């Protein structure tokens, strides 16, 4: 379901419609999760059971989506502890509100929306009191060809190491507004489509594209030294 409503559209989005997504990660959105996939119980069945206060059914839903929700909140806050609190509160709030879930959208989109709203509210409240508490970069990063190329290239900062790059990248992300950061996180890091982001953030695709463009432009400005 695509929401065509226009949200608090802050930017002109005429040209943004032409823009294409840069990153597509495979199979993130669980259209398949709504159905039954190789004997797996569908989300909808689990939701119906959880609505009858079956905590085990809800536990299964949490297990399915905790990683993605955590990643989104973590990339928004750049702080593991804050992300941990927010993810727990998101799922508890979703459990409380589960009886209001009518199934108009997928459970995944619905819980994502709760997480997004909660995170944006949190960030607005803590506007000037944010500090980074970053997770370690996993070992696979050393083998990521894109990253290897980027770090080993003769940039103005040859001594750049992975940790420093991570630090600068997160600092640049934190300079973006909450909505811009959210769009970059959902699209460029998590690989969601514009439509999915529009549904989660309750705005139209044009606004999503426009926000994405401006966010990338700002990031490029902040990270100019590392992108030459």
């Amino acid at each position, binding site marked *: 379901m695509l929401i065509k409503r226009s949200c608090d559209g802050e930017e002109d989005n005429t040209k*943004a419609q032409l823009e294409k997504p*840069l990153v597509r990660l495979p199979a993130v959105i669980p259209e398949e999760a709504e159905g039954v996939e190789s004997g797996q119980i569908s989300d909808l069945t689990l939701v119906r059971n959880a609505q009858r206060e079956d905590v085990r059914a809800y536990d299964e839903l949490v297990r399915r989506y905790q990683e993605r929700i955590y990643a989104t909140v973590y990339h928004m806050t750049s702080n593991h502890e804050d992300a941990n609190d927010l993810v727990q509160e998101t799922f508890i709030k979703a*459990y409380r*509100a589960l009886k209001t879930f009518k199934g108009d959208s997928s459970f995944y989109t619905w819980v994502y929306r709760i997480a997004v709203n909660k995170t944006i509210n949190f960030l607005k409240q803590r506007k000037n009191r944010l500090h980074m508490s970053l997770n370690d970069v*996993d070992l696979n990063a050393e083998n990521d060809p894109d990253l290897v*190329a980027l770090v080993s290239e003769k940039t103005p900062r040859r001594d750049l190491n992975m940790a420093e790059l991570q630090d600068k990248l997160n600092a640049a992300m934190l300079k973006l507004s909450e909505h811009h950061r959210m769009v970059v996180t959902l699209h460029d*890091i998590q690989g969601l489509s514009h439509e999915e982001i529009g549904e989660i953030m309750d705005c139209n695709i044009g606004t999503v594209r426009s926000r994405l463009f401006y966010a990338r432009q700002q990031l490029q400005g902040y990270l100019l030294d590392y992108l030459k």
Partner: protein
Amino acid sequence: MNSDPDEFETLRKLMALKRHEQPPPEYLHQLSSRIRTRIERGEGQLNLWDRLSANFSLRPCLAYAFGLTVCGALGLSAISMVKQEMEQAADSSPGATLRGPSPAGAFASQFKPATPPLHVANWLGNTNPTAESQPELPLFGTSRAARPVLYEAGN
């Protein structure tokens, strides 16, 4: 806005680094059980306000509608209260038909001079402030009622 798809290519490569930031290994295994524990401890219980706020956070337009309804209800009740007061004032004050209802009339009609406290009342009529305020106690502790005296002639 952007016709060159390669414009953000290097940025895209850089963003790949974010995907490699992972929480501590056991964290996600423990997360669901923490959430379950909190729910079982009763944090998942829903009261009326929780239900409302859950709905509001999902549909902000509901929050606006709710706010408008509450404000409207408060406004209407305030107006009806003021009307009621004015009608009461008009009914109770003498010559209300001539003067018409007015807030001052309403207050005036409701005003009754309070009975002064006992000691003040005593002071008004008697210079001894304790004269009437004290109960009449019998002299020397026993009651001596007056008895009529019978006088007989010739004695």
